[in-house]
């Protein structure tokens, strides 16, 4: 269950971008097979609605096909897909709050409530429960931090790609990530050996 190292598939994406420009439908399929599940997860982390998340991810591929003539092979196609899903989530009319949450300014992030610490688990705590804790910690992060963490750690996007998806500077991505880790550390701090425990349980 290690994070996917996506650096070696950059060549695949560049190849699909070129083929899509030549109306190669098989390239759409290849990109779909690679990115659909990650896009659904990302969309779900934004809208908290698996059905909607699937709709947005599918819509992104339909749009990719419609706009294939204008694809710039020099740009990251993967970032384009994530950005499209993000825009769809932002523009979703049924949940105006999503937009507010995602457009929260960085400065607001800092004042966001630090999640309350949880009770220290004893050594017998099960892995699943630990994962729930981690999950809860991430869910409690300010939206932009959580988004940066999601894209970087779990979807394997590069800083430059995340900056493109989140429409901000790469340095800002870094700040979000460092702050996210700090918040999580505070959240998990009362469990002195939490990280060690987590690693021990999982490895």
């Amino acid at each position, binding site marked *: *269950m*290690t*994070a996917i*190292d996506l650096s070696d598939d950059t060549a695949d994406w560049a190849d699909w971008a070129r083929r899509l420009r030549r*109306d190669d*439908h098989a390239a*759409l*399929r290849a990109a*779909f*097979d690679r990115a*659909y*599940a990650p896009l*659904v*997860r990302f969309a*779900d*982390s934004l809208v908290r609605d*698996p059905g909607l998340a*699937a709709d947005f*991810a*599918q819509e992104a*591929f*339909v749009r990719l*096909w*419609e706009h294939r*003539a204008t694809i710039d092979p020099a740009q990251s196609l993967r970032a384009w897909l994530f950005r499209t899903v993000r825009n769809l989530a932002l523009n979703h009319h049924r949940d105006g709050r999503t937009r507010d949450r995602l457009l929260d300014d960085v400065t607001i992030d800092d004042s966001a409530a630090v999640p309350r610490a949880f009770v220290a688990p004893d050594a017998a705590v099960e892995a699943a429960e*630990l*994962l729930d804790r*981690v*999950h809860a910690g*991430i869910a409690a992060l300010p939206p932009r931090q959580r988004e940066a*963490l*999601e894209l*970087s*750690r*779990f*979807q394997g996007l*590069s*800083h430059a790609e995340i900056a493109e998806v989140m429409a901000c500077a*790469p*340095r800002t*991505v*870094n*700040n979000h*990530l*460092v702050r996210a*880790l*700090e918040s*999580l*550390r505070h959240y*998990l701090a009362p469990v002195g050996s939490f*990280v*060690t425990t*987590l*690693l021990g349980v*999982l*490895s």
Partner: protein
Amino acid sequence: MTTPHTDLPAPLREALDAHDAADELTQLWHALGTAAPSPRRAVDHDAAWARVAARTSAPRVARSRHLSLVQGGVVRRVVPWALAAALLIGVGVTASPARRTWSAAAGASEAVTLGDGSRVQLSAGTTMTSTRDFRGWFGRENATRTVQLDGEAFFTVAKDGRPFIVRTPDAEITVLGTRFDVRAYAADRTGTTVIVEEGRVRVSAMRPVAPVELTAGLRTAVRGSTVRTDTVAVARLLAWRSGGLALVDQPMSLVFAELSRRYGVSLDMAQSASSAERLTLYYPQLPKLETVLADVTTSHGLRFERHSRGYRILSPTAVPPRGAKTDE
């Protein structure tokens, strides 16, 4: 305890190195990856792709992206005429019978249900066209249900009072409701073969020859004005329908053409390897292509070679074939 930091993005590592809790944060980063706490719900991948595929279709004709014939003053003179023409064409398009095309790519087989409820299974590398819902000008129902076929297909025709006609370059196959196979790959230049599994079929050659009535278990082959009919083992000959392969007494070149279609792989034959020999192959299930190639080549004193796009069939020349199977 040491933690592998290899997957830490470089800019983040720099930022963390300047941090007093750098070690802990790096460990946390690593732990997150191990935990992968991103929610992993079951994702219905295939159904999702089906929906995307239905909304994105592979283009049949290359699209012209730039239409830049008109410039400046010409536009003003051209536009009204273009509009008038477009209007006329528009009327024509809505009133004229819309055509539909179904195809199975090389290496694939497709199941099609037509507007009248008839079902058609297309073999690899086959194209079939008809008017949409068998309707003609101004949406009027045609007197016959006619499809054009290039390739091989198995038809299960629904009865609806109108005759169902399959047209190939050589023949016209007319039925009312029945199950039969038509094989007519234009590229093969081998004419049209019809095999009947159930019911009654009339085959009329395009050349002036008396039509042939076929019943279950009979096969007819039309080539030019030659029409030959014989009794066949239908299930065996139609092995392609269940993913198998049957070629009976076929010339070498046709065998490779069929293999190329079924596997979606380019196969070419060196001049020196061509021969007039005929062969018969039967596999209830499609084996690996190299297995088939080995069977075919070894039995005929040939060899094959893999190259970047597919395979090449060669005759064993003076140079001993490197890597070719010689022990079978």
